[in-house]
């Protein structure tokens, strides 16, 4: 059984809720199962917000998990709050400029926001760059499906930006890993 418990965390307004929807929807389109549990209340309005996504090739009984296997942190607060819970074999992806002190063999710090601003002229597309990076390590959702889903679920006027952002994030992670920039469909 393949199963991944992923926490997307950042501050309210960074679009982690949308990222979770895109990720889970892309997983469904790739023939997988997906659930989302999102933080509600004040967190979603400016504090450390999070969305927990579970992906599996089997139906998912429990959408809730105490600690993620993969953490995506786009803010310092999110990193400080959730990284202590990470297990030894967990993997983390963080924004290079937003998060300080994230180190370890399984931690990848990439310039999502910087790239979004410089290349796409849209700081808010950092979430989709991060999603592209995440797609590489998940190995079960083809890039095209993730990019297509990001485009179709984008707010009006952001479709192409989001598609490009996913591809660019995929590339950033591929480069960081040493060239594993393309994963073919390996879904069930």
């Amino acid at each position, binding site marked *: 059984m393949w199963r991944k418990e992923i926490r997307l965390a950042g501050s309210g307004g960074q679009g982690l809720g949308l990222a979770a929807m895109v990720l889970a929807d892309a997983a469904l389109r790739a023939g997988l199962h997906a659930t989302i549990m999102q933080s509600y209340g004040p967190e979603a309005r400016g504090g450390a917000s999070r969305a927990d996504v579970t992906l599996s090739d089997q139906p998912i009984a*429990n959408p809730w998990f105490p600690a993620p296997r993969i953490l995506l942190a786009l803010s310092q607060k999110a990193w400080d709050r959730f990284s202590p819970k990470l297990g030894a074999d967990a993997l983390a992806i963080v924004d290079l400029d937003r998060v300080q002190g994230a180190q370890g063999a399984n931690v990848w710090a990439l310039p999502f926001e910087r790239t979004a601003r410089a290349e796409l002229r849209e700081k808010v597309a950092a979430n989709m760059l991060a999603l592209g990076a995440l797609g590489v390590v998940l190995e079960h959702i083809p890039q095209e499906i993730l990019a297509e889903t990001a485009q179709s679920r984008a707010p009006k006027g952001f479709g192409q930006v989001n598609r490009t952002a996913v591809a660019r994030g995929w590339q950033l992670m591929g480069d960081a890993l040493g060239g594993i920039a393309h994963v073919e469909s390996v879904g069930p």
Partner: protein
Amino acid sequence: MSKRELISGNEACALGALASGLRFFGGYPISPSSEISEILSSRLPRAGGVFVQMEDEMASLGSVIGASLGGLRAMTATSGPGFTLMQEHLGYASLAEIPCLVVDVMRVGPSTGVPTAPSQGDVMQARWGSHGDRGTVALSPASVEEVYNLTVHAFNIADRLRTPVVLMFDEVIGHMREGVELSPPAPEDLWGRPRPAGAPGPDFRAYAPNEQGVAQLPAFGDGYRFHVTGLFHDERGYPTTNPDLVRQALERLERKLDPIPAWLPPEKYHMTDADFVYVAYGAVSRVAREAVDRLREKGVAAGLYRPRVLWPVDEAALRKDLAKARTVVVAEMNRGQWVQVVSQALPPAIRVVSYGKTGGEPVTTDEMYGLAADLNLRSVKSS
């Protein structure tokens, strides 16, 4: 490409209600049920219905009762604090036989408790929350798809038996999104209300029960004159204190709910040879199912018994279904509520254990599985 949509339990509830022909929603938004109000506030008017945000939860259910007396399918949605305020009107709707749906998305209580954290603490309140004896109906879905389907069933039961129905699920089920393919009910799958017996006139008896023991009220505006009250009443609806009539009415109101457990039988997972049984509903049952799979891999004859109807209880059926069990663990996100039903129904030879988790954290599969080891199931312990 999959047709599965990524929707939440609350969203499924709103969609199920619309598919059931909902025409009136009166409510006061409260987390973790707010999305139901939010979605219906825009979708219901477009479907030809009326959405009213009321001043509080008492008024909310009052408005629903009024709309229902006018012949409309009507509902409200709330959480613990609001559910408490609705108890008076739930009792009224029971006695006056007014169909309505109350959705309770449970969060940690008492009082305002822990907003948005999951709980199953309202189970006994659904049974006994209103004063006086009365039969109650409470349904408990365990998946997004089942929220949709049980919302349809809830309206059907409410209409056919002229009773309030509570659809209750924990915050995990309400907020969880999962991929589902919803199938809207066919027109013949939507039940109606009993038709009034007889023509308008001085001899008309709105509360004369049909063969199922259900009153046959017309809707307001149908041209009949009749009386509706929260006092015990005769068949014309006028108050009575006649002890025989009161006893008969009370008994009939409870008895008419008897068919419900058979309409929505429990889910039995690996139950045929199970001697170690989890009894669980809502989000906890999903975790219990995974624990059963893991125990089976270890050679333990484990099973899951998942009631979809929490009230009323068919005690004889429950006893029969669990007769082969040696140990029954009733796992709930409360300090032990439905376990009281189970332990009352089963003979002393069957060990009934209550596992109640509180604090707003859901039960995990590891916890549920570990529970079996704690109960001295040797094959698990030795692994």
